[in-house]
């Protein structure tokens, strides 16, 4: 991806990122207005069908305790003593990469009633959890592994609980069959059954040795104290890290895939997957983002205003663009009888935009919407974390302020060009058992 000339010259990229060990990066962004610090370690590896499941269980076992504090209850007591600092474990997926995260959020030093150095205490705890796990003779704690394995199995099977998410995942499964980005972030039940204390410890070792490590510090405290602790700890590890490359979008090929599935539900779901092609610059991706916002990403978008409000065809109807995979999805909740009509109406909105049949006012409103959302990024530690990790993953250095500037320059023609890069790939319907979708 080429980094285009973005923003004015005086606009600086505020994230400070430094390599502190082989393939280990420490990034920080601070602002005095906050009362907390958020520190996270993100282990990033390529999604791998064979290894994804063993890797997915790792953060949850780590969260149970370290070598120094193997007992979960004692660990949580320590967190309470740190003014209720929260220690979170998670698995995420960005494009074709799996991201294992362990993070801690704690109040800043100035609010500690007994003068504790909260930044150092929180960093040490996080370091212990990530780098000094409860592994003996190449095995994780047997009991913890068994429990977290069961939980992973439950998480995998609970995909079905929320029908909205379930339908979204099913559509993407069908659309991206055999592509890395379709590999599930929590892995697969048949593999989770086979997790052992050895296999999980092996997955852990491999993660620590081969993952690209992105350590993020956001908040109001001094990041240097945290950085030095991490630098020292990672210096003790021999590493052979991967490096992140941009994921390539597969173009839409052949016929549009259409799948209807039945389930015991009262409300139907219609999900449509599109390929976004030819996104070879950040400027183009930005225009795509604005275009898809105008199509279905805001409360004044065409999908919301026309398909939902005017035609009353869906209870919800929105679009989302993932620039890491180059995929646009349209999500909607429909009555079974309206499913076909809703599909046609959604496509009609897209064609309308492709013809340039929208006003400058519509475009300006969408830009304003993005401006508000982008400005809000800097007010939330969590939003900043996601933003800057996405920049790192995409190999770009664009701040929310720079993106506002970019958005403001998007023209009507840019939007028309952007929507013309969108190609329908898959239509998925989840329908109630006793009714038929309308003709």
């Amino acid at each position, binding site marked *: 991806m080429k980094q285009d000339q973005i923003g004015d010259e005086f606009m600086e990229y505020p994230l400070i990122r430094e390599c502190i060990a082989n393939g280990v990066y420490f990034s920080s962004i601070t602002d*005095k207005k906050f009362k907390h610090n958020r520190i996270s370690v993100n282990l990033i590896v390529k999604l791998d069908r064979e290894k994804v499941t063993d890797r997915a269980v790792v953060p949850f076992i780590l969260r149970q305790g370290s070598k120094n504090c193997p007992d979960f209850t004692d660990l949580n007591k320590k967190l*309470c003593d740190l003014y*209720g600092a929260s220690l979170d474990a998670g698995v995420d997926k960005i494009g074709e990469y799996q991201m294992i995260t362990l993070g801690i959020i704690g109040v800043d030093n100035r609010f500690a009633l007994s003068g504790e150095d909260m930044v150092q205490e929180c960093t040490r705890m996080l370091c212990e959890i990530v780098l000094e796990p409860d592994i003996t003779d190449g095995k994780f704690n047997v009991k913890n592994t068994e429990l977290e394995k069961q939980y992973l199995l439950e*998480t995998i099977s609970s995909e079905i609980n929320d029908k909205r998410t379930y339908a979204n995942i099913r559509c993407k499964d069908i659309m991206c069959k055999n592509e890395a980005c379709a590999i599930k972030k929590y892995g697969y039940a048949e593999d989770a059954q086979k997790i052992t204390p050895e296999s999980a410890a092996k997955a852990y070792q491999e993660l620590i040795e081969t993952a690209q490590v992105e350590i993020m510090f956001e908040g109001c405290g001094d990041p240097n104290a945290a950085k030095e602790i991490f630098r020292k700890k990672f210096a003790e590890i021999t590493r052979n890290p991967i490096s992140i490359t941009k994921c390539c979008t597969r173009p839409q090929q052949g016929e549009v895939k259409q799948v209807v599935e039945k389930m*015991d539900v009262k409300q139907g779901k219609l999900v449509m997957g599109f390929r976004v092609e030819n996104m070879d610059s950040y400027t183009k991706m930005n225009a795509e983002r604005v275009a898809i916002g105008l199509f279905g990403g805001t409360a004044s978008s065409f999908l919301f205003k026309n398909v939902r409000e005017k035609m009353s065809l869906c209870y919800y109807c929105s679009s989302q663009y993932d620039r890491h995979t180059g995929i646009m999805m349209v999500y909607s909740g429909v009555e079974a009888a309206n499913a076909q009509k809703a599909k046609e109406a959604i496509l009609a909105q897209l064609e309308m935009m492709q013809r340039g049949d929208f006003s400058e006012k519509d475009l300006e409103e969408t830009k304003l*919407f993005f401006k508000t959302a982008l*400005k809000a990024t800097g007010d939330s530690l969590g939003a900043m974390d996601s933003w800057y990790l996405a920049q790192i993953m995409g190999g770009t250095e664009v701040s929310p302020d720079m993106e506002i500037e970019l958005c403001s320059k998007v023209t009507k023609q840019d939007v028309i060009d952007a929507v013309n890069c969108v190609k329908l790939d898959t239509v998925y319907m989840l329908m109630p058992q006793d009714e038929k979708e309308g003709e």
Partner: protein
Amino acid sequence: MKQEIVRNERIGEEYLRIEHPSGLTMLLYPMKGFSTSYAMFSTKYGSIDVCFKTEKDKDFVTVPAGIAHYLEHKMFESEDGDAFDRYAKTGASANAFTSFDKTCYLFACSDQFRESIEILLDFVTDPYFTKETVEKEQGIIAQEIRMYDDDPGWRVMFNLLESMYQKNSVKVDIAGTVESIAQINADLLYRCYNTFYNLNNMVLTVAGNFDPQDVIDAADQVLKKAEPIQIERKVEEEPAEVARKRFVQHLPVATPMFYIGFKSPNAGETQNFRNMIYDEMILDLVTGETTELYKKLYEQGLINGGIIGETMAGRDYLCSMISGESKDPDSVYEQIAEAFEQAKMNGIADEDFERIKKSTYGRYLGMFGKPESIAAATVNCYFAGMDLYELIELVANSTKEELMERLKADFLTENSSISIVMA
């Protein structure tokens, strides 16, 4: 116009309380360094207000379940377009929600605050619905209700409320039912509107990056003086006992989901809210991640995904709920009830109490770091008859004795229920 600065030394912050001549109270919390501002215009009117009268009405009127939520949907329309269209011109991101005891209209913005606050004040004080527009909404809301019918997480919670409460309307779904909303018409909507959307029954809270003078100017320009109003809400006496101890619904879920609830005595609106803070601390002390109970349940493989404790308070209800997923919810219920009995007998250890106090303090401090949390907490406190800073002071000054008293009064096994959703 009465203006007052409310200050808290502990966190070194302050906000402005204004009694506007129109009758509206405004609570304004500017925050240095933030880019966005968050405004909420709220009426003390929610799904539980289904039987009421004002001092001018002769009789109580009973309205269909779900009407407060229906009204919220309809408020966005006016004779010349809808509020979303107007907000689109300022770039504000707008929304609204209805809960048991309030309806809130809100927006977040980074620019053109003055224009956005004017839109907010204007459209909420300007109702417009006709027979046609009311009927059109029925389809949309019926869809929303159906979506919740498919949502096991929503069902398991409402089934618990239905199990705990015999009379209180808190047991009825906020959106009502497909049948109840079919009875809603424009006249009923106006009746509700004219009763509850009186500025004396409302509050405006703003937090973040804004100039309080802009709010005052917009209010001066848009708001007309509202006549004082006395609203009487008819409430049926709720017995201490739960309606049923156990309820199971079958829906397609992977692992059974459960909600366990303790129904606590009603101590009046403000005191219920204070008790809620104590009860949250008790939930943490007895069922939180630092407890022996949690460890035991986890090691038995009964709560792999953890459990969540929450307390809910309103004008005439207070209850605590513990939820999660488990292969054996009944065993979880039994062990939780047992842990509360043990805590009552053995008391609370000093170090446990101090630890929970510290972590609760940290959590409430976190609330003061986000404009949206401040705006929301300010509304809740105001309607409960409390000041915002009382929250953090209540935690900081809490004693073990106060918690023991609540533990004994609010967590009785005989007044508890379990709701389960399983395949």
